[in-house]
């Protein structure tokens, strides 16, 4: 049997697929962070918690109310977005005039609350979520076995990324949004309701995170800590890519997912730290980030 640098192809491609999945989550989450930061000037530490809540809403929906996967894929983001509207209206809004760091601290507190509440009711061992029956099984591609659900996750996440890119770069709403990022005062003077736009942006970003959470539920264990693990890595991804460009976020997210997977195959000890090490190198060579503009 042939091998690639001493590793069976089945194993290599399996890990690469997993890397692509992780990479699409990095992409979706860093995209949401960047969109929120662009509009609200706040780094949303609760992004990981919103991803975790998305997964839990799907799991609770299925086990308690019998809501199936496809409905959860729509309902969980909506629910989290509604919750985020409240957070933005009642709390974040009061902080826009202050230093940006207060937004980070507030959302950090919210993340602690969410993590603590779910940990109290569901422990840390994790709950498993069955793959929906339409996507069970897989196809044999000859060089590897491709589980249908995993292919769907990558496809769905990338489509969402593309949709976000399209909405921001190619629609009228996106143009307004970009204008408000640059000069909110002028946009407001033109009669556009900028505060409403900010609320919707925060809700949409949080909804994206919840959508990723539902996608993730059948792949990994649904666990109260899943969000905080992910958000720290996503912060490193954001530092590496810079928050200046949407396509940059997507490319950086996917690329880092793949690099992480390759590390897992060839040097598993370093797979947990490789993204942080890349961050260190990028900071030394190109401090503004790969796609960032020098501040």
């Amino acid at each position: 049997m042939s091998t690639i640098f001493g590793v069976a192809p089945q194993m290599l491609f399996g890990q690469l697929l997993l890397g692509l999945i992780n990479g699409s989550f990095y992409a979706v989450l860093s995209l949401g962070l960047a969109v929120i930061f662009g509009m609200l000037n706040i780094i949303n530490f609760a992004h990981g918690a919103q991803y975790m809540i998305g997964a839990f809403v799907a799991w609770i929906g299925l086990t308690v109310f019998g809501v199936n996967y496809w409905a959860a894929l729509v309902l969980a983001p909506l629910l989290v977005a509604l919750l985020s509207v409240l957070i933005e209206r009642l709390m974040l809004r009061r902080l826009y005039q202050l230093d940006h760091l207060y937004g980070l601290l507030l959302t950090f507190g919210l993340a602690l609350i969410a993590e603590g509440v779910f940990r109290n009711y569901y422990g840390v061992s994790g709950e498993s979520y069955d793959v929906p029956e339409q996507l069970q099984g897989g196809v044999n591609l000859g060089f590897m076995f491709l589980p249908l659900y995993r292919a769907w996750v990558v496809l769905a996440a990338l489509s969402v990324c593309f949709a976000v890119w399209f909405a921001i770069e190619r629609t009228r709403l996106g143009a307004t949004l970009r204008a408000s990022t640059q000069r909110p005062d002028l946009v407001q003077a033109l009669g556009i309701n900028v505060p409403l736009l900010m609320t919707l942006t925060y809700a949409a970003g949080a909804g994206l995170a919840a959508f990723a959470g539902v996608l993730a539920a059948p792949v990994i264990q649904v666990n109260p800590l899943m969000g905080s693990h992910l958000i720290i890595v996503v912060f490193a991804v954001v530092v590496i890519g810079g928050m200046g460009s949407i396509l940059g976020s997507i490319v950086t997210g996917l690329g880092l997912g793949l690099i992480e997977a390759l590390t897992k195959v060839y040097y598993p000890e370093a797979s947990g730290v490789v993204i942080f090490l890349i961050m260190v190198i990028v900071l030394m060579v190109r401090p503004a980030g790969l796609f960032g503009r020098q501040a």
Partner: protein
Amino acid sequence: MMSQGAGARGSSAPMFAALIVVGLVAPFLVYPTFLMKVLCFALFASAFNLLLGYVGLLSFGHAAFFGFGAYVCGYVCKSLGAPPEAGILAGTLLAGALGAMFGALAIRRSGIYFAMITLALAQLVYFIEVEAPFTGGEDGLQGIPRGHLFGLIDLSNNLAMYYLVLAIFLAGFWLIHRTIQSPFGQILKAIRENEPRAISLGYAVDRYKLLAFVLSATLAGLAGATKAIVFQLASLTDAHWHTSGEVVLMTLLGGLGTVLGPSVGALTITGLESVLADKVGSWVTVIMGGIFVVCVLVFRRGIVGELRALRLGRRSQA
């Protein structure tokens, strides 16, 4: 970033005298082990405040230095059999060296990126501490000997241990206080208030930031190393991002950019945790998150800051 100036510039001798008296008497009134924990976290939070309160840099990874100091001290005392003073010194210095590396990287970006970079770097250290062969993995380093200080004073005596911790805290606190009052501290505050202006005046801003970062990391390492000797334990909890968040909360609750605030915050949070631990169990995280939210929304000056505002307000009315 967000606080008032140095405050009244009078002599600080009365404050130190009061601190020393309270510190000397306290172990006869309150359980010394609890006090030692408070003092370690008070030093940790004061070191953190030097950075956030006076330079305006939010490090979200300060647990890395605290935990690293604890691990180094534990390793030196337990595996190498060195006396406690050597362990504490090694933990402090190596945490400072780690701070120099992190600082050099993190000050390349500012504001929100600085916070994200320090958090990610701290996670890197955390992973290494989970995996490395000499850190004891999930168990941490247990049974670190307290030993004899300078070969003379038996630290297994809780009161002797307490007075050592008190001396370390007072020394660290004094150093931070002196730093803030010095011309160097004035420049740090200038950077916080208006960085471009400080650059245009000819100050090498990055060098000042780095020096403040290293000093803060060194003192955080001192606090961690001391805690390792007191509790005879260096654990992953010390290096976890929750601990980084906790020290932010202590500083915020006590009063950002005030001299005594971080210590008041450390006392409040540590006290709250020990009272709540038996009653509400794991809801503690939720309560801490709640305090965070309340502090940011309506209590940004913190306890000491509010008290000072109250006092100043009364004086201006009279």
